[in-house]
């Protein structure tokens, strides 16, 4: 691993700024694309930032009977996303924090955020909060095996689960990126990411019907700045997951050395990759309806099989 350099620190700061600053824009872009596909004009891609600014100015409410868990959960949710944004190789592989956490730790951190939110949902003691928490944890429990098996498949050719190592090895050996292992693992991971970020067909982020909610049901009690944090965090989660997907499978463009133009290219490449993935996701969602909750396990089981196939392929094709 590179010694923590000035550029490593710069990379960390840049990654944080990009993820915080651009993730609401990503959501805005996806909503805008969807609006266009539906024949609407759309509110423009800066609308999520307007929403956040407004929410920050609104009054905070604390529902009666809730404990500290309810108040800390949004902070923790944002904090996990921030840590992942700082640790993972998005702009540069020479992040100063790379030895701190690997792919497992990153995934577990993101799960921690979800758990905090699920506990907050239960803490309110409302029926919808409990329902959302129950559904979300069920999905997490089922997502975990696929996630880890996909990570397994990715790390076998590299011999490490460290994020920078996986990304660098993809850069060094482009053939690896187009191998069946990579493709199978990518498909498995895409399904998992859709489930983890609560997109269609697992969860409908714009539903108004409580009975169909998963993520939304947990946050029904939040308002004002707390809600702003939850919204920002869910945007950051999506960005972080898409960024991971992009850099694990299409690593080109990421800065491997420290100089201003290289890092600039890294920033540009990251933004473009995440934007393209987000656009693909938004367009794909137009064609999908939400699955029934009890059909979701079938989807996840399918992606698990793909993950297993990827591992098998990584051994037999090695």
């Amino acid at each position, binding site marked *: 691993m590179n010694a923590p350099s000035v550029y490593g620190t710069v990379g960390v700061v840049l990654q944080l700024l990009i993820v915080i600053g651009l993730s609401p824009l990503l959501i805005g872009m996806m909503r805008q694309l969807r609006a266009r596909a539906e024949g609407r004009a759309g509110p423009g891609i800066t609308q999520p930032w307007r929403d956040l600014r407004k929410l920050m100015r609104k009054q905070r409410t604390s529902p009666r009977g809730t404990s500290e868990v309810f108040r800390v959960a949004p902070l923790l949710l944002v904090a996990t996303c921030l840590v992942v944004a700082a640790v993972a190789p998005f702009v540069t592989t020479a992040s100063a924090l790379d030895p701190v956490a690997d792919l497992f730790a990153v995934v577990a951190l993101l799960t921690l955020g979800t758990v905090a939110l699920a506990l907050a949902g239960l803490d309110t003691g409302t029926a919808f909060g409990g329902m959302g928490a129950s559904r979300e944890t069920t999905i997490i429990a089922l997502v975990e095996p696929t996630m880890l098996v996909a990570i*397994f498949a990715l790390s076998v050719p590299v011999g490490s689960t460290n994020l920078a190592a996986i990304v660098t090895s993809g850069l060094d050996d482009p053939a690896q990126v187009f191998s069946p292992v990579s493709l199978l693992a990518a498909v498995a991971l895409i399904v998992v990411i859709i489930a983890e970020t609560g997109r269609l067909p697992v969860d409908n982020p714009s539903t108004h019907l409580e009975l169909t909610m998963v993520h939304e049901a947990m946050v029904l009690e939040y308002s004002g700045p707390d809600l702003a944090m939850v919204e920002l965090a869910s945007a950051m989660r999506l960005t972080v997951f898409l960024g991971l997907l992009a850099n694990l499978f299409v690593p080109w463009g990421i800065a491997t050395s420290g100089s201003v133009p290289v890092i600039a290219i890294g920033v540009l490449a990251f933004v473009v990759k995440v934007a393209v993935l987000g656009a693909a996701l938004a367009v794909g969602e137009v064609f999908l309806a939400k699955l029934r909750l009890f059909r979701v396990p079938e989807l996840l089981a399918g992606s698990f099989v793909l993950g297993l196939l990827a591992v098998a392929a990584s051994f037999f094709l090695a």
Partner: protein
Amino acid sequence: MPAAPGRDRRGAPPADRPVTGVNTVQAGLLTAVTFGLLSALAALLIARPARSAVVGVGIAVCGAGALVAGVAAMVGQVASFAAPDLLPLSGVVFAIDPLGGAFLAVTGGVAVATGIYGVGYCRGGLDGRLVQCMLPLFVLAMMLVPAAASIGTFLLCWELMALTSLLLVLAEHRRRPEVASAGRWYAVMTHLGLVAILIGLLIFAANATDGTYAALRLAGQHLSPGLAALIFLVTLIGFASKAGIVPLHAWLPRAHPEAPSNVSALMSAAMVNLGVYGIVRVGFDLLGGGAAWWWLLVLALGALSAVYGILQAAIGTDLKRLLGHSTTENMGIVLVGVGAAGLFTASGDLTLAGLAMAAALLHIVNHAAFKTLLFQSAGSVVHATGRRDLDYLGGLHDGMPRTTAAFGIGALSASALPPGAAFVSEWLLLQALIHGLPAGVSATIVMPLAVAAVALTAGLAVATFVKAFGVGFLARPRSREAESAHESPPSMLAGMGLAAAACIGLALLPTLVLPTIGAVAGGVVGSGDPVTVTATTIALTDFAGSLSPLLLTVALVIGLVATLAAARALATRRAAREARLWDCGAGPLSARMEYTATSFAEPLQRVFDDVVQAEQDVDVTHHRESAYLVEAIEYHRRVPDRIERRLYEPVLAVMAVWGRVGRRLAPGSVHRYLGYGFYSLCALLILLVVTR
């Protein structure tokens, strides 16, 4: 806690050290035995008000002694004690090596926390002479099992442990009828396990010069593979049943919840470990490794137990039973590590084997810490509310904030999420499994499935503990008892505090204990240190991979503080307003509208219906005047243990049939009994004539 120097001393022969004087191991063990016996004696002599305090403190001192002795043994000190004439066969022999030291230290640590906890917990009902006398004896027996160095000593301590724990499980049999049934299951299964171990070890001893481990080790190298496998399998049955491994787990979810909570903590955090100790001792040490398929079997059993245990826990609603199932799960994870270590040893990947073994040992330590804490907090809840059913709990954060915090820390540690303790050990285990892929074709199939099993277990553990914590402690109280819950006495909180501190320490600074544990694991499988540790970061020795729990937590805290500061700075100055819960405008929400543990687990139950096969029925009572109006709906759900139903019930049925048949032989006529005696004597004589 010992740090790096331990590694240098480990390899040195004992002769290098001064033989005179008492070393730390001996001193610690002597303290443990003395205080253990003294508190057992004190329990008999001291009158009731002070009894539980004296015994509790005695157990804590005894545990501290064992902890010191165990840690000293782990870093390389040895101690042995022999009294050849005290018992037949090879007499009483004790010797502590690093492996035994690890288990001794874990038991000691658990004893310290539960001893102090027991001071307050045992007041009111559990401070009778018998229970208070058995408690230190049980702790002592658990400490002597890993210290034993001959078959006779081992079996003696093992049986002492089984008997004392049985009496402790039965402590509350007058209050609840279920205790008796649980005790029956436990008595039968633990003794069947003992019989299995006895048979296995006796076959082993018959092929050695005597019953000491040294002799067995020597004999183990020359055993035929078939005989070695037989010994391993037969002892595996006994040890696995002690560790609560599926399908021999049936006693565990019965006995652990029905025992008093301090006993549950001791059993779940310390006693089950000794099953793993037995497997490692016999498999690795005495039999010297063995064939790959042994360990494949161990790994498969471990994976099965992990998934099955946590699935039952995820669906269950009884707080203590859920923790019992989680013990099965965690022992399963440990056995996955042990099995993987054995597989890698058989295929010659010693570094990997060391890594897997270190993961297993670290998980044992972590599990001991968080399971002690969880059972103690569950005990505190039962103490305050008298209820174990999560469906009737909730809202405890108001009445018992400290217990809630303690359970929260335990739940985080148990659910394999950073910054929790189990995350570190499961991370190590996953690293071992992932890097084990090139080990061979069987590994290609086994390792991904093992990873998937561990991952599914981790996922379901998250669901389980979100349920236990979220439904049991947060939200609003679902019963009057939960509403009027009060905090437990200070001694119980102190015990919980100790266990919580251990959980936090293990989660943030595994770098302090990992070198020692790595050295012990390396010693067991014969490899070098599997992990390299700097002040904050754990790195794998031969593979690229690192993790820094401390820095990760620091980063998380920085993120948290930064978010809070940003939110404070950017957000409105408007004062927060307390508001009623959003009830869709329909009037206040009552506690009966909350999600319960049953409803929380319902999606999981439906997803895993093929495995769990819950029995549910819904009774709808209609109004008298119209069938269209519903008066009441009753929902019943029972989750029978399927393995138990398939495996145990047929056996029990056959036993019952035999019993009925056998009863005909005993009609009560003395003449007939005399006749039986006469005919058997004749048969024996004929047999002798024929064979000689």
